[in-house]
Every structure is written in C-alpha cells, then in structure tokens.
C-alpha cells in the first residue's frame, strides 16, 4: 500500500491479522478510535508495545457502547485486569469477537460472560433478573420478571441444576439463528 505507517511494525500487524478478524487497515482504524478515546494517554507509536490502559468510563462513552445496557459487562468481559480497563489488545479483541466474522462458539463464550453478572460461571436466577431489568429498563413488574426468569431457566436448563451452565447456554444459543446477527457491533 502507499503510505508507510509508523504506528505498528509489520510483524505486529501480521500478528493482529492472524489472531483477530480484522485486516491491517481496520487495525489502524481501530487504533485511531482507541487514540480518540484518550488522546493524552494513548501513544501514537505502538512499535514497542506500551503498557497503556484506557479506563472504563472513557470506553463506555464510545458511541457504539454508550446506549447499550450491557456496556459495563461487555467491557469487563474483555478486560485483562478485571476492572474494566482495556489495553489496545483487549480493545481489538472486543471488537473482533463482536464483529461479523466471529464464529458462533466464540461469541457464545463471551456472551455467557456478559450475562454472568456475578462471575461464577453460571447464569443463575439473579443474573437473569439483572439481565431482564437492563433489557426492559425496569418496565416489567417484579412478578413478571421472576416468572420470565423461572420459565427461561426451565426451558434452557438441561442438567437440572436450576441454573444455566455454559453448556446449557450454548445449546440454547445454537437454536437461535438470530444470535449471530444481534450479538454484533459495527465499528
């Protein structure tokens, strides 16, 4: 290509291309977006792999995430330090999994993490209740919420422990053809 960019080495761009679903151009564009979030924090030269993390409040202000009720959960699912701060690698990873080309299994893994509020590797009734309240913006009455949660767990729970393990979740997702198109953010 024409212009020589100095943000990443070629080796780095190749690595990104192999490990994510983005091409070189898209990685550079993503870097631009990442830099926009915190211009003072994010260096323009990533050739020596700086250890820079953008804090959670800045990330959830992105237009793609701002109005999403699950924005905190999404960012935390991809955050290495567990507090919601994303390094550039995490940032790229997040949008790569949420892109069009990510396979169903990969998306299911991270979707499970998004909906698992208490990080115990199960989606229990409380997790579901929180999900529902975020989805409907507290429009349903508590009885309705409780009823929906119980019925959902009843439907999806295969091994009968009254909460959804990852296997139950994945099994249910595999029957929903719309999952791939809804769990998708364009950047």
């Amino acid at each position: 290509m024409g212009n020589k960019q100095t943000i990443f080495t070629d080796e780095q761009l190749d690595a990104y291309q192999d490990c994510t679903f983005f091409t070189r151009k898209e990685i550079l564009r993503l870097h631009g977006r990442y830099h926009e979030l915190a211009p003072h924090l994010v260096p323009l030269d990533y050739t020596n792999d700086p250890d820079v993390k953008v804090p959670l409040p800045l990330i959830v202000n992105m237009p793609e995430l701002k109005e999403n009720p699950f924005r905190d959960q999404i960012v935390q699912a991809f955050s290495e330090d567990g507090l919601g701060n994303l390094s550039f690698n995490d940032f790229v990873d997040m949008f790569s999994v949420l892109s069009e080309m990510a396979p169903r299994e990969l998306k299911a893994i991270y979707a499970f993490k998004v909906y698992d509020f208490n990080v115990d590797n199960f989606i229990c009734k409380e997790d579901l209740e929180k999900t529902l309240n975020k989805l409907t913006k507290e429009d349903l009455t508590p009885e309705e919420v409780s009823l929906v949660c119980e019925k959902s767990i009843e439907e999806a729970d295969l091994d009968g422990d009254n909460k959804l393990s990852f296997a139950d979740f994945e099994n249910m997702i595999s029957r929903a053809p719309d999952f791939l198109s809804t769990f998708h953010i364009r950047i």
Partner: protein
Amino acid sequence: MARSVNFNPDSHHLEAEMESPIDEAAVHDSFSHLIEEQVQGFPNALEMDQLELDDEARDDVGYLVNPVMRQEECHQQGDPHIEHWSSATLRILSSMPSRTIGRSRGAIISQYYNRTMQLRRRRQSRPSIRDFSHSSRPSIRGYGGVESDLGDLHEEETKRERLVNNLQNLSVSDRVRMLRAMPLSVSEKTELRHLALWHKERSFSRSNIPCCSQFKYYLIIAARQTWYSWLSLLSSLQLWQTALKTVSGRFGTGVLSYFVFLRTLLFFNIFLFSVTGLFLVLPQAVFPPVLSNTTGLSGLELLTGGGYFTESVMFYGYYTNVTLKKDCVSKESISSTLSEVGCHGGLSYNMPLAYFFTIGGTFFVTCIILVYTMSKLFGQSFRIDKSQSILAMKVFCSWDFKVIKKTSVKLQSENISTLLKELLAEISHKKGEAPIRQRLGRISMHLLAWSMCVGSILACVFAVYYFSEYMYEEFRAKYSKSSDSPSLLALPVVVSSINLLLPGFFNIVASMEKYDSPSVRTYVSISRNLMLKVSVLGILCYHWLGRIAANPQSLVCWETFVGQELYRFLVMDFIFTVLDTFFGEFLWRLFSQKLLKRRRKPVFDIARNVLEMIYGQTLAWMGLLFTPLLPAVQIIKLICLFYMKKTSLMMNCQVPRKPWRASQMTTIFITLLCFPSFLGAAVCVTCTMWSIKPSQSCGPFRGLQTMIQSGKLWVKQLESANSNLAWLTWVHTYLVENPVIFLFLTAMIFFIVIYFHTQVVDGQRKIITLLQHQIENEGKDKKFLITKLQAIHEQSRPLSSQRIRGTSEDSSYY
C-alpha cells in the same frame, strides 16, 4: 443414611463398575469409598480450610443454592440460610469441568484444544480469596498461581509447549483459523503465534532442506503477504460501510438486511457486467460492424431503448456472427466450412462462440455462487431439532447490539418488554381450542381472502395477456418502420402499476384476517406477492418467447426487440419505485402526521421492498442474453436505489414495532433469489438457446437453426481438426442432443443425493434426542454425587450447625 461401603480398592474394577450404570448401587458405593479415602487422607486440609470457608462461603456459596432448596429451608427454618458446603466439597465442585468456559469441537484439532481447556481448568480452580482476581477472562498464566508449585508449573509449560507444537504443525489457514477461534486474549494468542512461527522457522533453517523446498517456503510467505494486501484492498472497498452503520444504528438488523441484500445484488451485477463487458462488449466495440442506418439521438431512447440504441453495443443485433481477426482483412463466418483464406497469425476471436460461452458461463457461475450462499445460510438458520426454548432465546438473543441511537434503543427496550409480556401471557394462559364457530369463521375468512387475492392475480394475468397482444399488433401495424415510439411504454407502465397497486390491495385484504403470529402474516404476504410476480413474469415470457419469437414476421431483429422490452421494463420499474418512495413514504408521512394527526411515521416494509429488488434482478438476468449491457443499467439503478431508499428511510420511517427475524428472512430471500428468480431466468434463457430460431439477419447466431448450434459446430470443427476429441462429440450426441436422457440423469442424481441427505438428517435428529436424555441423566448423577459427598463430609465434621440434614436427603437437594 450411611450405606454399607463396599471396599473395592482395585481401580480397574472401579472403572469397570462406573461404566456399567445398570448396577448403580455398586457404582455409587465405590465412589463414596473414594471420597472416604480422600477425607481420611487429608484431615489437616479440612481444618486449615475451615478458616477460609467463611470467606468463600459468603462469596459464592450463595449461588450454589437453588431456589427450591432455599424455599425448603425457609419453610423449615423460617429464615433463609446459606447452606454450608464443606471446603473439600467446594474444591471438588469448583474443579468440575462444567466450570470451564469455552468448549470447542473440531476433528483435527480437538486434541490440543482439550489441552488448552485443561490449562484453563487448572488456572480457574478456586484459589483463596486473597489471590482471587476479578478478571473473567481465561488466561494461560492464571490468577497469580496460588496452586503452582514447581511440579504444576512444569506441567503447565509442557502443555503450552504441546499446544505450540501442534500449532506449528498445522497449515497456515488452519493455524489462523484456530488462533482466531480461541477464546484467549489477543496478547496470549500473539505470543503463541510468535512461538509457533519461530519454532517453525528454526526447524526450517536448521534442517538441510533442498533449495527448492526452501524456495517453496519463501513462495508461501510471499503468497501470504499478497493475500493479506488483497484482503486489505477488498476491505477498503467496503462499500457504504458508514451508511450501513448509520442505518443499523438507528433501525436495527431487520432494515439493515434489506440494504445488505441490495449490496449483494450490486456485487452480482458488477460481476456480470465485468464478464460480459470484457468478453463481449469490448471486442465488439473495438471491431464495429458496418451499420445499415443510424438514427439520431433523441431523449426517448433512455426510456424505450430504441432509436439510437438499437444499433449499438447494447443490444443483441449489433453483434456480428463472424470471427473477428486482428491484422486480417478477410473474415470467415462460422457456418462456412472453407478453410481459412489468406491470413494466418494475429489474434482471432470467435464472436458467436464467445457470446454463447460467456452467457452460459456467467449463468453457471452465478448458479454456483447462489447455491453455495443459500446452503451456507440454511445451515446457520435452520436447526433440525424441534425443541422449543422461546422465552430463554428471546431474553438472550433479542437485544440488537448494533442499535446505538438513543431513541431507537429506548424503542427497542419497549418492544422487548411488550414481546416478553405477550409471550408470558401466551404461556401462562395456554389458549385452549377456540370454539368451533370462531375457528370456522376464521377459516372462512382466510378462504375468502385467498380467493380474492388469487382472483385478482388471475384477472391481472388475463389483462396483461390481452393487452400485450393488442399493443404488439398495434405496434406492428402502425410503427413497424421505426423501432421507437412512446406507445411501447404502455405495457411496462401497466405491468409496473400492477406490481405497485396489487400488494397494497393484498395488505388491505390481510388486515381483515386474523393470524396466529406476525411471522405467519409475513410469510403469507410474501407468498401472495411472489405469486403475483411469478405469474406476471410468466405471462410476459410467453408473450416474448412464445409469441414474438415464434413468428417475428415484420420485425427485423426480434432479439433486439425483446432486449429493448426488458430494458423498458427495468427502467419503468425504477421510475415507479422512485414514485412509490416519494408518494408512499414521503407524502404519506406528511399526510398521516399533518392531516390524520398520527404520531407514528410509516414503517419500512422490508418484505415488499426485497421482493421488488428480486423482481428487478430477474428481469436483468432474463435480459442478459439479449442485452449484454443490461447489468450496467441494473448497477446504476441499484446505486440510485440505495441512496434514495436510505434518505427516505431516515426522513420518513420509524423503527419497526414487530420483531423481524433477520437471519431467517435473509435465508428466505436468498432462496427466493435462487429458486423462482434465477431458476426461472435460467430456464427461459436455456429454452431460448435450445429451441428458438434466431433471426436471420442480425446477431451473432444469424443463419443457424438454434443458438446452441454454434457450440455444436465448434465441437465438430474441433473434432475434424483433432481426432482425439471424438469422444466429445459422442458425449455431446448422446447426452446433450437427447435432452430427455440428460434431464433424467441429472434429476436422478439430484434425487439420490437429496435422499441420502434426508436420511442423514433423520439420523442426526435421533442422536440429538438421545444426547438430551443422556445430559438429563448426567445431571441427576451429578446431583446425587454432590449430595453424597456433602453428606459424607458432614458426617466426618465434628459438629454441624443448626442443619437437620439426615432426613431430607432426597434429590430435591441442590
């Protein structure tokens, strides 16, 4: 509740017993023996862990309790207490495989995927609370290695090495695919990749490879680099990326699917145009034939395609039937069997053959692409097991993450809550069978609506039939001299207005009926529209091929005339779409908001718009044979349509209220594009080529009996030139000449393949039900084992707290 323990120290026997679940008592007893051993073996561990118990218990034990048990406890005790699982139980529970996230299947690579799983399972086992990290991401390095002593580290390193080893032994595409699909963080993936590639390069440079293999290796690297740069180029061409993002941000996935479909059709047409342009238009434009008479340019051509355009590259009649030769004066026509006179050398280009093979080739390639896309989409969206989990799916899959505009997000949550309430109402009060009278009333209403629709379609078909005949007679009588007159536009106008008005009529009729669900309503409306369009197109095909082509009488060149007709239809279709967008959306919005004082804007009717596009594309495909430049017209039309529809959408429409199952609908649309649309066009073209006599005085197939004869003659020529190819003529004579055998064979093959596949699908369905039963049984086993485990630990603990456990030892626990 202590059972008599069967002391069975032989591990083989244990395993054997575990494998035969029939003898359940023996299995469970020997397992509990195992647990007993463990308990007796680590008394210290128990005591030490008591200190940690409270922290852990507070932290996550609460979530191990199910509502049923909690209720039971409440019932018994009168206050909700968290069950105290002993820490050893917790330890065992936390190292259960079901705690692991991210299973994956794969024939070739499952082996080292399991290794990655084991690594992660090791790392995710419960450390003490101080070392607990809040990150929910799996990591090879883990949470600070609470359990890592030297032995564990060593084990972890070997597993990682084995993983890297496996990665480096894969092919490049496999490795890339594996790396991308791994649910690890990007930094770890890059490290793995670096290690794998580094090892590979080292092994390459170390070994004494002959120079050609090393050359091959460098060639592969170079090929990969070019492939990456090609991908970057393609992605930079990503057409309308920002526009699509705006649309999806405000309207969601449903409306977006229309625009994505439009873009797909645009790419199809670009492909068609580039092929025909390269192989047909360009050679003919470079060697223009001698024209008989040229008319001047007037504005009407753009609409009718006649006049100036008649004798241009646009239509069939312009193309010569000779072999174009460069650097050569004399030209040979394919129907003559004389050997070449005079010139040898230079490039020669057999126009009729090129025409025949280009058209055939484009149809073939389009067919393959369509069938492949369709089957891929089918695989994604239709599942073969029939179980329902509607509510859970709605909760997890209905939030569209693409929507980013605040008002749309608010609307989306409202939609979801309405949907959930409706579903709840449906589930809670299971509607019993409606009374007979009501059902009869509904059925009769449906029958009435269908008869009205079918009747109107038949009326339109007859109207088109008689009107087309009348218009053609009139044209031949009065305007046979010039090929251009405004009256030619009458038929396209009539057909386009039918296509515009009748769906509205269908909508009105459908509003009278009562449907079970909105998706049934959508399917019914799509099928009615489809019936209309198929019948209208069918009657037009008969008019062109059965009437005009059969006895062209006063027409000099019937193919050009048919090509012009198709051009007219396409242009009229576009004009009417513009009018419809303007009146249907813009003015209707003004009307409804100002006059009717409705708060809601009109809704974008996705199904109708997609069907319109499919209709236009059918016309383009049918016209390809007669008008090689028709894809260019279609390209211009689609680009204008995109911007027009997008602007109209932003200004006039609102987010749809009803849920739209985007992926199923996309599959249906691609199927409709493939089956009635493309197949119909292909059948038309094939019939034309096979059986209809081309014009005598124009076009690349003049003088031949059928268009396909050009291919036959070429094969004969090849055979006379080179006798080795005699088998080709044999194949040709016996298979292609005799269409019945040919069709019969192809149909047989298809049916056999389909039959095998249905059998496979049936078998898989059975396996799915079996596996579901198995999972249920495993769940019961798990429950049983955990309660046994806990019971044993309880027994071995000095004093339990206020729990009364012995009596309530049944499967309602946990």
